[in-house]
C-alpha cells in the first residue's frame, strides 16, 4: 500500500464533530420546546415556521446569485480569462472534482470567495485586487482554498447549520414585539397562560440563539482551517498559501477606512476577513481563525511534507487531503527549515494581473449587503 504524507488531523476532526454535536443538541432542545408550545395550541407560531422555511429556501436556492451580484462578480468564459480558467482547470483535475464556474469581481479589495450549495453549481470568484497583489502561485493557493470549500460543501453545511439559529432569533424578536404591543390587557386565565408560554418561548429562543451563534462561528473557523489544509495539500505548497495569507491580511490594513467599513458586511464570504479599526472582535465571534493560527497550521503541514521518511502509513491509499488533519506533533527530524519560511517574491515573478494584463478597473464599492437575515448578526453563508 502506498505511503502517504497526508495524515489526517484527528484533533481537528474531533473538535469539529463535537461542535456539530453540541449544535445538534441545542437545536433538539429548541425543537422540543417548540413542539411543546405548538401542542398547547399556539397556532400563530406555525406561520413563523413557514416564513422561516421560506427564508431558508430563498437562501439555499438563490443566495449564490444574490451574493455574486452584490459582490459585483461577473462570470467569465475561458476566452475572457484564459489563464484563470486554466489554473482552475488544473486544480480541479488534481483534486478530481467538477469544474465550477469562474467569476471575476471588479473590486480592489484583495479577496476571493466561493459560493454555491453543491460542487456542480459552485462559482469561484477572485477580485481584481487579489490578482493584482499576489503572484500566480499564491493566487493558485488561494483558489485551492476556495475549491476546498466547494468540495466540502461548506455553503450548504453552514446554511443548514445556521437555519435553526436564525429561526430562534426570529422567534425571540417576534415574541418580544407581541409581548410589547399585543396582549397587554389579558384578564382571563387562558390569556395569562398564553403570556407565560410566550415568555418561555422567548427565553428559550434567546438562549438557543446565543449558543448557536457561538457554535456556528466555531464551526466556521474549523472549516476555514480545513480548507486551508486541503488547499495547501492540493498545491503542495503550504508556504505559498501562508505568504498569500500574510500579503492579503497586510494589504487589508492599508485600504482606506471607508472601504473597510462598507466591506465588512461581506466578511462571511472572504478568504481572509477584513479587519477594520475597532474590529478587534474576541476570537470566538470571528468567522475566520486568527492569522497566526492559520500560519501555524500551514507551517506544520510544510514540515510534514518535507519529512524524508513519512511517519505514518495508512491503508486507505494516498489521500492528498484528509483534510482536517493534522497528525500529532511531528518529529522535527528531516524538516526542511527553508520550507517553513514564506518565500519572498523573486524579481522575475509577476503578480497574476501583471502577467495576464487583467484590468484593475476599481469600481465604486457596492453598498453593503445584509443578506436575507439582515440584522440577525449571521453571516449569510458563514463561509469565506
Amino acid at each position, binding site marked *: 500500500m502506498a505511503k502517504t504524507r497526508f495524515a489526517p488531523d484527528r484533533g481537528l476532526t474531533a473538535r469539529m464533530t463535537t461542535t456539530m454535536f453540541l449544535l445538534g443538541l441545542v437545536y433538539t432542545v429548541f425543537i422540543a420546546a417548540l413542539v411543546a408550545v405548538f401542542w398547547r395550541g399556539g397556532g400563530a407560531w406555525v406561520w413563523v415556521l413557514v416564513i422561516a422555511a421560506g427564508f431558508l429556501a430563498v437562501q439555499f436556492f438563490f443566495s449564490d446569485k444574490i451574493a455574486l451580484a452584490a459582490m459585483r462578480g461577473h462570470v467569465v468564459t475561458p476566452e475572457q480569462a484564459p489563464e484563470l480558467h486554466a489554473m482552475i482547470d488544473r486544480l480541479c483535475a488534481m483534486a478530481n472534482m467538477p*469544474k465550477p464556474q469562474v467569476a471575476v469581481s471588479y473590486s480592489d479589495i484583495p479577496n476571493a470567495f466561493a459560493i454555491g450549495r453543491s460542487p456542480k453549481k459552485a462559482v469561484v470568484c477572485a477580485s481584481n485586487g487579489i490578482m493584482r497583489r499576489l503572484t500566480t502561485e499564491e493566487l493558485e493557493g488561494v483558489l485551492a482554498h476556495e475549491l476546498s470549500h466547494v468540495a466540502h460543501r461548506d455553503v450548504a453545511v453552514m446554511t443548514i447549520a445556521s437555519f435553526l439559529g436564525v429561526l430562534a432569533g426570529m422567534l425571540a424578536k417576534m415574541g418580544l414585539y407581541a409581548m410589547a404591543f399585543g396582549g397587554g390587557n389579558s384578564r382571563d386565565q387562558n390569556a395569562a397562560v398564553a403570556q407565560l408560554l410566550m415568555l418561555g418561548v422567548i427565553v428559550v429562543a434567546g438562549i438557543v440563539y446565543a449558543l448557536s451563534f457561538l457554535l456556528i462561528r466555531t464551526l466556521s473557523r474549523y472549516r476555514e482551517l480545513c480548507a486551508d489544509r486541503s488547499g495547501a495539500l492540493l498545491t503542495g505548497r503550504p508556504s505559498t498559501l501562508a505568504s498569500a495569507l500574510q500579503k492579503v491580511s497586510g494589504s487589508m490594513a492599508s485600504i482606506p477606512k471607508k472601504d473597510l467599513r462598507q466591506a465588512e458586511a461581506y466578511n462571511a464570504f472572504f478568504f481572509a476577513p477584513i479587519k477594520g479599526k475597532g474590529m478587534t472582535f474576541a476570537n470566538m465571534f470571528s468567522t475566520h481563525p486568527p492569522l497566526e493560527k492559520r500560519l501555524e497550521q500551514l507551517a506544520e503541514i510544510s514540515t510534514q511534507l518535507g519529512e524524508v521518511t513519512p511517519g505514518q502509513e495508512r491503508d486507505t491509499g494516498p489521500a492528498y487531503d484528509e483534510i482536517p488533519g493534522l497528525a500529532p506533533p511531528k518529529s522535527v527530524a528531516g524538516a526542511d527549515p527553508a520550507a517553513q519560511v514564506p518565500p519572498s517574491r523573486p524579481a522575475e515573478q509577476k503578480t497574476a494581473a501583471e502577467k495576464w494584463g487583467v484590468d484593475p478597473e476599481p469600481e465604486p464599492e457596492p453598498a453593503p449587503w445584509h443578506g436575507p437575515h439582515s440584522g440577525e448578526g449571521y453571516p449569510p453563508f458563514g463561509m469565506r
Partner: protein
Amino acid sequence: MGFLDALLGRSKPARPDLDQLFGLPNAALTLQAAMGFEATGVGSVCYREMEGQAFYQTQSDVTELLDADEGPKVEKSKDEYGYTWLICRGDPQDVSGLVTDLHAVNSTLEANGFGPALLCSLVGFRHPDARTLGLVYLYKQGSFYPFAPSGKQQRDTVLELQVRGQVANDLKVEQDTSRWFPVWGAPGL
C-alpha cells in the same frame, strides 16, 4: 465524496489506476492504422513540485532511474502555471518502452506518497499533414482523453471526438468531457 467526508470537511481522491497506461501501445497502433497519426516518441508526466526535501529527493531518484538506460536523458521543464513536466524521449516505434518510462515516473512518485502531486501524463502523436494530438492520462481519474491543439488557445474538437471513437476499445476514455481540460504548450506536442 461521501456524506460524512463532506460534513467533516474531508475529501478523498479517487483510486488511481496506473495499469490503464499499458493500453497506450494498442491505442497508438489503432491511431496509426485508422487515422494516420504516428507517435512522436515523446511522452511527459506533469506534476506539482511539492515543497520540502522529501519531494526533491524522490524527483532526483526518478530522473536517475530513467537516465540509467541508454538513450536521451530525461528533461525537466516548468510551465507558466508552476507545474513541472518530466519529458521522456524514445524511439517513435517503441511506444511500449515509452509507456514503461511514464509508468515508472508515476509509480515512483506514488510509492513515495506523492501520488496526489501527479496531474497527468501525455503521449504525443503527429499526422503527416502536421496536425498534432496528445493522449492525456488523468492520474486522478485513471482515464484518457484526446487533446488536439490547433493554433493558439484553440482546439480541434472534431478531431478529438474522432479520436475518442477510435481509441474507445483500447483505452478507458474519460466520459465527462468537461474534464478534458486543455494543456496548452505541453511539451511533446
